[in-house]
């Protein structure tokens, strides 16, 4: 009785451990990217093409830009794929990255309530719009999370001559969250918010929100890809990571990016050829 029970118990324990153990022997890389990029659906479209061709599985951990870079600083990612050029350059200066290559851009749009309290609807000048929003003390939602979008927003306030950290009022709401939750919040409070076009197009909870301002060149959002430095982080999969980077900037990868559409709208515009981007 005792022996049989012990054998069953051991068998169960072994089964459990087998169940729990890391399974696959497939090659894979870990890419740290941003929530807005993942939520746009780009990866679901583009990665299977690469995976089929190379046999390398791409595992995307989606965080805010700041977090993604911090993740890579700890050596927990092989490749970084974000959209905050100044933060990326700092990353390379610190020695954590090998080289930054431009990949694609998308643009930001200023989203706002149909009721348009700041009277900026249909405009083409983002700086003018921001000044009007502050002037009207119209509710404005900021990501407030060190993301690429947040950096871009701060930058635009700066161009408008407004030191937003000092001059914000109760109309300026920092939510400290990703793009989706920020849009949710804007929808429920009828506020203006800066969003990347991709997330906006995929966003389903619009309420009374519409695009208020778009097309200003200053709203363009550049993506870069960086291999995490294998000299500094020994575990980085140099060959596979480089294979992914090589592919994403290659004509085939660039075409895959351009082919990704929501409805008939192209979300991302490949520009790996623009070395200065």
């Amino acid at each position, binding site marked *: 009785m005792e022996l049989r029970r012990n054998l069953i118990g051991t068998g*169960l*324990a072994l089964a*459990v451990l087998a*169940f*729990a*153990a*890391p*399974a696959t022997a497939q090659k894979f890389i*870990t890419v740290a990217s941003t*929530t807005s990029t*993942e*939520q746009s659906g780009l*990866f*679901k479209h583009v990665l299977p093409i690469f995976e089929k061709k190379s046999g390398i*599985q791409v*595992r*995307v*951990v*989606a965080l805010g830009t700041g977090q993604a870079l911090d993740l890579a600083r*700890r*050596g*927990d990612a092989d490749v970084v794929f974000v959209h905050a050029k100044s933060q990326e350059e700092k990353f390379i200066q610190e020695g954590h990255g090998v080289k930054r290559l431009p990949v694609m851009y998308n643009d930001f749009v200023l989203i706002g309530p149909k009721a348009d309290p700041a009277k900026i609807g249909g405009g083409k000048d983002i700086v003018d719009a921001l000044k009007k929003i502050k002037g009207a003390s119209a509710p404005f939602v900021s990501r407030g999370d060190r993301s690429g979008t947040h950096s871009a927003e701060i930058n635009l306030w700066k161009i408008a001559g407004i030191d937003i950290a000092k001059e914000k009022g109760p109309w300026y709401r920092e939510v400290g*969250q*990703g*793009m*989706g*939750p920020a*849009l*949710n919040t804007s*929808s429920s409070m009828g506020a203006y918010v800066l969003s990347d076009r991709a*997330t906006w197009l*995929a*966003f*389903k*909870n*619009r309420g009374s929100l519409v695009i208020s301002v778009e097309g200003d060149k200053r709203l363009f959002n550049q993506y870069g890809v960086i291999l995490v430095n294998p000299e500094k*982080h020994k*575990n980085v999969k140099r060959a596979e990571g480089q294979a992914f980077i090589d592919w994403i900037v290659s004509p085939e990868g660039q075409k895959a990016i351009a082919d990704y559409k929501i409805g008939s709208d192209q979300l991302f515009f490949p520009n790996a050829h623009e070395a200065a981007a």
Partner: protein
Amino acid sequence: MGDLTSAFTEAGRLIAGADSELYAIVALSLRVSLTAVVVAAMIGLPLGAIVAITRFPGRDAVIVAFNALMGLPPVVVGLLVYLALSRAGPLGPLGLLFTPTAMIVAQTILIAPIIAGLSRQTLEDAWQEYAEQLRSLGATPLRGGLTLLWDTRFSLVTIVLAGFGRAAAEVGAVMIVGGNIDGVTRVMTTAIALETSKGDLPLALGLGVILVTLVIAVNAAAQLIKSAAQRRYG
């Protein structure tokens, strides 16, 4: 109310659609939480029994620790496990970060105190009843402990189910140590969080309905087994 109705519709549509991605997410959720609860029980039940039956200096402090750790915030556990498993951390070389194994580890740490703390109380109460008789029959403390665990099995099953419920419901730990990687570490709770942040609330609610149904199913199965056994053993 309309949201809730559309949630059930959405849940039905998802299940009927036999979406392979959904099945993978459900399967992973079950695999992670069930494995975690089994391992946590293997740790927590003996610990609970030992503390229930034996007397040692510092016992009160241990009991307080068990009870306090029952309330460990999942996101804190996730952060601590992440720091341990990160390449920059002590267990980095194991390469466990962003894998289901890491999620199992985090959830095990989360539920083991629950099982230890609650079983300790149950076993201590039962020991009051059993101690003299078992010692009289010649049982060693070890044997007595094992007999006690078996005799209180119905209460213990309920405790283990509580642990499973907690594991299946949490998102903070698995999000951080798993990374919610599409096709690799995405479970029900992180999928719900993702769809919510994308603004797809009906889908998120639909997934929520499926998750709750899953937990109910597990509990119902356990209850059936318990009833059958109780009829047999009293």
